[in-house]
């Protein structure tokens, strides 16, 4: 699953370690998400999006979305 995690984290100047502590996972998990080696559970996706103050789809864009689709 593609994510905007690395970009969003860089924009805020957070390290992987800082983000991992905020959402309660290991730095390995954050690294794996950024390098697309792990698809997050729904729970983790919500926690990460919450840390950024964004909707889940703003961090993890829906890979099945068709052009023109918008969130309700």
């Amino acid at each position, binding site marked *: 699953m593609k994510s905007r995690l690395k970009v969003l984290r860089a924009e805020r100047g957070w390290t992987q370690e800082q983000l991992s502590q905020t959402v*309660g*996972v*290991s730095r*390995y*998990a954050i*690294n*794996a*998400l950024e390098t697309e*080696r*792990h*698809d*997050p*559970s729904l729970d*983790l996706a919500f926690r990460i999006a919450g840390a950024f103050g964004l909707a889940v789809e703003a961090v993890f864009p829906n890979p099945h979305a068709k052009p023109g689709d918008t969130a309700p």
Partner: protein
Amino acid sequence: MTPTWPTSWRYTLGAVVAWILFLACVLGVTAGRAQGWPMAALAALALVPALTVALQFRAAYRLIAEQDEFVRALTLKRMTVAAAAAITLATAWSGLELIGLPHLPAWLIYPLFWGLFGLVTPLIRDTRA
């Protein structure tokens, strides 16, 4: 970067003790049998390795359960592949024994499993299918 596992000193220390006990009992049974120890003592000693295996897997289960979802999924994936490879190799060897290869003791499957776990660890770095 891929996480190494385990990352708990408590688990590592327990595993080292369990391995020493496991190997000591296997050697002890062999030596005891050669020296004619009582069957009851040999039987009790012979079951200790199985107990150490059960305790170590219990500790591993608990340790895995404490990890975050990525490390947990990665470790379970590696363990599944190692178990599949160990069982496949053991079955293959068992089949070849039927046509004359020397017999190997079944307790070797346990170190074989962990050896294979070590081998597959650097090869499996993602949790995706």
